[in-house]
């Protein structure tokens, strides 16, 4: 791979100083003159019909300025549900945390007190928490038409993928393995709680949002409030994480706008941490039933998955279960059913369909390898994908190198052993898993203005959720323009000043918007060649609206993770003691921040493997672990040192050959840890998270 001048060199974030001095302005830091504070009242029941709401005591509280309920607000939140009409305030309420009212008052204490003074008369209804139980005849109907959420074609049928003939594949096998796995509802738990500030100036609405995509947020606010697009402005300057649950316009953006309209002054609507855990969304819980057919020599003949995803009561995400596509196999069938349940809503969390699915299939493939007396690394090298779905070549594939070089760096041969070997009570074990993630190409835009002082003003509609997107865009521009990084001034996070960007979801910013930046830079260079450098008050402007055709080949990133754990067989405690992550994301634009992404994604996955779950009380349908302590997200003391290995394949597409990066980082981590635990203790825990009680349970 050729060496470039800017791209590929470690570069601190261009906004790092702001982030370490407390001067970066996050949405919640903004205070507008005369601004009110708003709070939301939420259902304490998992499923209930609202008979009546009495606002009289809340309205009488001094300082209360505006209240919204279903009585005076029938606005539909378009991106809150892709199948049904989801209002800002719904009746019946369908999960503990569904919004019932929103109050704006002089300060947050008064708003909070007012929500407590609202009297709601509920008629409680039966509820169902488990996706399979929700699909049983006689289960309470959560949405009109039943709990089987329609697939992409609007049919109440599973999403099905087939190649070959699964029955034939199972018949051709020397041995068929069958097992099932479950994964839990896990919250995104980004540090910045949800907040929106809405301000009306005449008929123009400005929303200071905490969003991963200002363009999407802008379009959706205009649509849901029936405003002309030019009458809406969305600003997000600094953003405290999202991991997929701040992709679209959210109900609180709309509520803030409506409260501000009613009160005639700006309104800041804040969520508490508990609301943030319950009322936005987390990763969908799944149940996965697999059958795998294999020849004696380890060749796969069939993979079958029947899966169920619990979506909560509103359909916000795909509910997919991915992972089996990392294996080559002639006969494959995957059928996944999405069901409505009365738990918190489920949708995107870093690699939405993947880590839970990869946990399932990689746990089973590990068992297959052990059963055939094959080294799990050799088994994967034999059966890993070579073409996408065994049909379409990849634009580039570094998976084999990820596995081989990752295993070397990890010292796999030294650390891996027969399952359960070791005398204990603390046992060590090694595990690995692999994964892939779509590396899309698509629509985005960029504008570069060059002034006579030689500054390049790069306008991109990114918000930088922690991925260093601004720095990445600046590096790409500097590289293509052949100027120092300091000459690039990035303007971001404001729909009145920036062109369309895809939004920071699907790990697409580098590949989509980065590509637009390259094209804008090329256009600018052509203009300079033609017209010369701008003088005095002159300015050159280059614009790129790009939508590159998808390559005929499949474009994917690849990854293999290796973990070593210590399991205390008396206490059930697991500690990850060594970790190697090998990644093929094409060319790495900024190794400093990219490495941070990998370290973070892997550690986040360890938390999903070992701790995190939004637990529900089966008797009451109420959540028990909504918060950082309850969810037991990873802390400094839990986090191992993650060694990162870059397998930089040459890829002909994307900006300088960069592929996706942010989401692949979490994909195989859960399975790698699970497989290491199996290697340590010789028993397999098949339900996430792998908590102490479950480890002691399988050892008993």
């Amino acid at each position, binding site marked *: 791979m050729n060496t470039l001048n800017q791209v590929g060199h470690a570069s601190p974030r261009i906004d790092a100083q702001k982030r370490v001095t407390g001067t970066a302005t996050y949405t919640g830091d903004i205070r507008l003159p005369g601004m009110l504070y708003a709070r939301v009242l939420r259902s304490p029941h998992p499923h209930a019909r609202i008979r009546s709401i009495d606002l009289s005591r809340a309205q009488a509280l001094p300082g209360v300025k505006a209240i919204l309920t279903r009585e005076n607000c029938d606005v539909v939140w378009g991106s809150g549900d892709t199948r049904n009409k989801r209002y800002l305030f719904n009746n019946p309420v369908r999960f503990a945390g569904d919004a019932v009212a929103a109050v704006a008052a002089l300060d947050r204490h008064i708003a909070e007190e007012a929500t407590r003074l609202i009297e709601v008369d509920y008629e409680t209804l039966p509820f169902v928490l488990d996706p399979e139980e929700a699909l049983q005849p006689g289960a309470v109907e959560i949405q009109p038409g039943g709990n089987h959420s329609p697939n992409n074609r609007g049919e109440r049928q599973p999403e099905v993928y087939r190649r070959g003939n699964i029955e034939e594949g199972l018949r051709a096998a020397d041995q068929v393995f069958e097992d099932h796995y479950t994964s839990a509802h896990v919250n995104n738990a980004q540090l910045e709680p949800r907040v929106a500030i809405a301000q009306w100036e005449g008929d123009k609405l400005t929303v200071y949002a905490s969003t991963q995509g200002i363009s999407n947020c802008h379009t959706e606010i205009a649509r849901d409030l029936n405003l002309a697009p030019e009458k809406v402005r969305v600003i997000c300057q600094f953003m405290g994480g999202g991991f997929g649950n701040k992709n679209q316009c959210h109900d609180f953006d709309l509520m803030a706008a409506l409260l501000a309209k009613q009160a005639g002054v700006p309104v800041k609507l804040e969520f508490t941490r508990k609301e943030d855990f319950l009322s936005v969304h987390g990763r969908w819980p799944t149940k996965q039933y697999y059958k795998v057919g294999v020849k004696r020599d380890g060749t796969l003949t069939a993979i079958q998955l029947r899966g169920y995803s619990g979506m909560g009561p509103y359909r916000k995400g795909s509910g997919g279960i991915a992972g089996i596509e990392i294996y080559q196999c002639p006969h494959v069938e995957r059928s996944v059913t999405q069901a409505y349940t009365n738990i918190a809503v489920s949708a995107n969390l870093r690699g939405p369909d993947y880590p839970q699915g990869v946990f399932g299939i990689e746990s089973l493939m590990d068992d297959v390898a052990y059963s055939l007396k094959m080294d799990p690394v050799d088994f994967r090298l034999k059966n890993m994908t070579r073409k996408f779905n065994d049909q379409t070549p990849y634009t580039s594939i570094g998976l084999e190198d990820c596995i081989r070089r990752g295993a070397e760096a990890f010292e796999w041969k030294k650390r891996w052993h027969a399952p359960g070997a070791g005398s204990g009570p603390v046992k060590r074990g090694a595990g690995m898993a692999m994964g892939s993630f779509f590396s899309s190409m698509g629509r985005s835009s960029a504008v570069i203005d060059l002034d006579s002082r030689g500054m390049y003003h790069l306008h991109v509609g990114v918000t930088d959720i922690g991925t260093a997107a601004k720095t990445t865009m600046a590096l790409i521009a500097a590289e293509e323009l052949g100027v120092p990084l300091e000459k690039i001034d990035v303007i971001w996070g404001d729909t009145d000043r920036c062109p369309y960007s895809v939004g920071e979801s699907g790990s697409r910013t580098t590949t989509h918007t980065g590509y637009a930046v390259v094209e804008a830079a090329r256009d600018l260079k052509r203009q300079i060649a033609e017209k010369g450098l701008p003088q005095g008050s002159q300015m050159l402007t280059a614009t790129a609206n790009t939508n590159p055709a998808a390559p005929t080949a499949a474009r994917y990133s690849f990854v293999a993770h290796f973990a070593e754990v210590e399991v205390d067989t008396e206490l059930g405690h697991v500690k990850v003691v060594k970790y190697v992550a090998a990644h093929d994301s094409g060319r790495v634009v900024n190794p400093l921040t990219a490495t941070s*992404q990998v370290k973070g994604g892997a550690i986040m996955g360890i938390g999903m493997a070992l701790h995190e779950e939004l637990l529900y009380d089966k008797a009451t349908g109420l959540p028990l672990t909504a918060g950082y302590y309850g969810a037991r997200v990873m802390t400094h003391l839990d986090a191992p040192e993650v060694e990162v290995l870059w397998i930089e394949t040459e890829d002909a597409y994307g900006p300088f050959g960069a592929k996706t990066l942010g989401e692949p980082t979490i994909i195989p981590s859960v399975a790698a840890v699970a497989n290491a635990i199996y290697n340590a203790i010789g028993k397999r825990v098949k339900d996430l998270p792998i908590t102490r009680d479950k480890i002691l349970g399988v050892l008993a």
Partner: protein
Amino acid sequence: MSRISRRKFVEGTGAGIVATAVPLKGQTARTAPVTPSVPHTTIQVTVNGERRKIEVEDRWTLVEVLRDHLGLTGSKVGCDRGECGACTVLLDGRPVYSCSQLAVWADGRSVETVEGLTQHGQLDALQQAFIQHDGPQCGFCTSGQLMSAKALLNHNPHPTVDEVRHAMTGNICRCSNYNRYVESVMAAAGTLSASARRKA
């Protein structure tokens, strides 16, 4: 050991005040809205070396006063319930969750926030190391991480990696950039000891 260091630190802060001679503000900070029916108290707090007289509602937390009434928004509210550490500040030199301290409890005491780390336009060694070693991803937990690290280095300038992890484990980073934060603190400690050696 740490008690002595803490006292020294507090004395150091006091000396700073004399040197910069920040006068006590004659006027109480404007803190509207104060709900008349709610008990309120006038407190005196030294914030980043500057003595402030503030009228507060007794129900206000320290972080609310810092952010909403003194404009010091560097300290973040991640959970408002003592779980995440994004609001960590130093109270008389010790790290506390400012969401879990009532403002009235800070009366007569000294508070240091992230805004106080930069002295005369010069970044603290920790801040420089956080930039070079890519400490912040989204950055929302960063101020808290910095203040916990600052408290550690104030009483233990040469920590081991394990001591850093223990001192900062009350600061959650959901981007999970823990490796980078530890690396940054170790680098800052190294820089500090190198400069101390040069002076000696």
